[in-house]
């Protein structure tokens, strides 16, 4: 059967394998992704099956990885770069923001750079400094990039294949704290279409993953599971929460969220990244414009604080927990 139960990390492996299988121009690049299979084993076995020229162990230089990937894309390849950890993307930040994001624009559409940058991100794994961060807003603020994050194994499988197929560069944030969460994956699912901008597009469309009537909880990546747990707790208390999985931070699917909030009147946005100038802030601003007269309370945010990601022993106080989500819902309902 084509449907298998597997962890999210292995769903990405399966998606990469499928992409390598169907298109000879697809290649993977990164540190330790070959014989080792990556520090999270997401590329496990792929170099053995596809060779050293398609699954490339690169020098330890992130700007070099993304910069050479841009050149390879100009030559007709579709490189998928792995950045080992979120905090190590910054040496490549210049190449991503000043080059990758705007090559199509500055060339008047003559050059496409279908590069995917995979970044394991987020906390909760007891890691040392620079291994638990959520820098997605920094990339979403840059025109020309698509910024996405899957929350389930099926979405991980679908979205990585869609990202590889995308003619635009995609920053693909993988919720490493959820890498080993299992779910069913239909390996025969078609690669989602990007061109029609339809609801099947997981690189641009949010999805209501739990219908409800009293409050809208918005999350993506690692916090989707958090807010689903919160929704269960709320249900036991008699509050019916709707949960929206954004899936994409750029573009933001404002219509889907606004449609939900028009029905519920209340909204709490939850992400691990600091709330200050984050994607929740943008969403709050947009909701105040789009559904001002439907709002029963201010849009609230639950997320990281404006402090560097703390030491591991404190991270559970820093990360948005179920209790902090419930507290925010209480405050929203108090209006």
């Amino acid at each position, binding site marked *: 059967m084509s449907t298998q139960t597997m962890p999210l990390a292995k769903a990405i492996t399966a998606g990469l394998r499928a992409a390598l299988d169907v298109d000879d121009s697809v290649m993977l690049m990164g540190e330790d992704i070959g014989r080792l299979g990556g520090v999270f084993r997401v590329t496990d076995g792929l170099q053995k099956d596809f060779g050293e020229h398609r699954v490339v162990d690169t020098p330890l230089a992130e700007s070099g990885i993304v910069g*050479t990937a841009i050149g390879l894309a100009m030559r007709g390849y579709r490189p998928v770069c792995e950045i080992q950890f979120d905090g190590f993307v910054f040496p490549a930040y210049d190449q991503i923001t000043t080059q990758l994001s705007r090559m199509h624009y500055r060339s008047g559409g003559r*050059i496409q750079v279908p590069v995917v940058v995979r970044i394991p991100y987020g906390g909760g794994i007891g890691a040392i400094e620079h291994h638990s961060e959520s820098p997605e807003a920094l990339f979403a603020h840059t025109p020309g990039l698509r910024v996405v994050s899957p929350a389930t194994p099926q979405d991980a499988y679908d979205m990585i294949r869609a990202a590889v197929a995308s003619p*635009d560069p995609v920053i693909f944030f993988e919720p490493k704290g959820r890498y080993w969460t299992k779910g069913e994956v239909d390996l025969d699912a078609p690669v989602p279409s990007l061109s029609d901008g339809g609801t099947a597009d997981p690189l641009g469309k949010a999805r209501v993953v739990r219908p409800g009537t009293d409050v809208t909880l918005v999350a993506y990546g690692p916090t989707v599971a958090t807010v689903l747990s919160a929704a269960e707790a709320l249900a036991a208390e008699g509050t019916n929460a709707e949960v929206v999985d954004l899936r994409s931070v750029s573009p933001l699917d404002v219509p889907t969220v606004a449609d939900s909030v028009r029905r519920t009147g209340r909204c709490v946005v939850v992400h691990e990244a600091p709330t200050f100038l984050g994607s929740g802030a943008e969403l709050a601003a947009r909701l105040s414009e789009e559904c001002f007269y439907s709002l029963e309370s201010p849009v609230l945010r639950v997320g990281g604080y404006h402090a560097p990601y703390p030491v591991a022993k404190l991270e559970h106080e820093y990360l948005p927990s179920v209790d902090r989500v419930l507290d925010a819902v209480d405050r929203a309902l108090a209006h």
Partner: protein
Amino acid sequence: MSDQVTDGSDVAPADVVPLVQLVTPTGERVHEPDNRYAARVAHLTGDDLRAMYRDMVLTRRFDDEATALQRQGELGLYAQSTGQEAAQVGPAHALAVQDMVFPSYREQGILHVRGVDPVDRLRLYRGVDHGGWDPADHNLHLYTLVIGSHVLHATGYAMGVQRDGAVGTGDPERDTAVVACFGDGATSQGDVNEALVFAAVNDAPVVFWCQNNQWAISEPTSRQSSAPLYRRGEGFGVPSVRVDGNDALACYAVMAEALERAHAGHGPTFVEAYTYRMGAHTTSDDPTRYRERAEEEYWRQRDPIDRIAALLRAEGHWDDEWAAGVEADADALGETLRAGVRALDAPPTTSMFDDVYATPHAQVDEERAWFAHYEAETAGTAQHRTEEAAR
């Protein structure tokens, strides 16, 4: 290697650095005992040398005309290549058609040889385009303004060439090299150093063509390196050479050797073309604040165009009637530029939203629609309100 020439910069002033030179500043051929580089220009005919001279003269005229257009307010900025014509036209003449060049933003001579329309070369500086030409038409990438970023792109492109099997076939119309042009300042950038790492460990068919024009805006090369720049390449395991960047023939020969290595699949080469930026960094710069007239005069006497002209005369290839024809071509180029640049209008306002993405993106689509709506609703009135408020 040819004669030993004293380094003219303040990089290790007492140092004597080997330099490939095939023609002296006064136009005599240099005797090269091993004939290593001289052999690579032996086939060039008088017509070939005259073609190089003509391209260098037209590049110089292009500079003068563009600078004048900037002074007249027709360009926002312009970066001159004056003094570096040999280090650009020479290597460009050695390229195979399929070789891909990644320029920095001062490669006016290479753009000229690669056939980019003169007016299109100034679209960027006119402020009507971020590029100006189709890279695929000329195997010439767009200018890159973040110093050194494109050197990684060139290296990645070369890695793609390898994967395409377009090196080492022995087919001169298939084997492909990639050239990354950058300057002395760029050698300090991490991206250039990372590019050398990636190229070296992959044997990528890329030529690192570093024009050391002695100045990174106001900073002399001594602020970038305590060793001659060509030795940077050696540290990465990349064959490296310093060439007299004001000697078009030597630049041609050194590039030809580097291209041969790349085409054969034997990997990268680092070339330091030792030259001089005779003009300002850009039209916004004022070199009198940081360098001496004596230094400029030293290099003026080593003008690369004077050198190839002297060679043509010395070897009987000079012809006054032909030279007058080159001047007439330069005059015609000036007329083309003046008319063409002035006719370059701003693109449509909504074009700022074009091509941000290759596929629909909700944010861009929404803002484009809003912008169009705003423009239509406020046509004429916004300016009116500003004027009212100013009263």
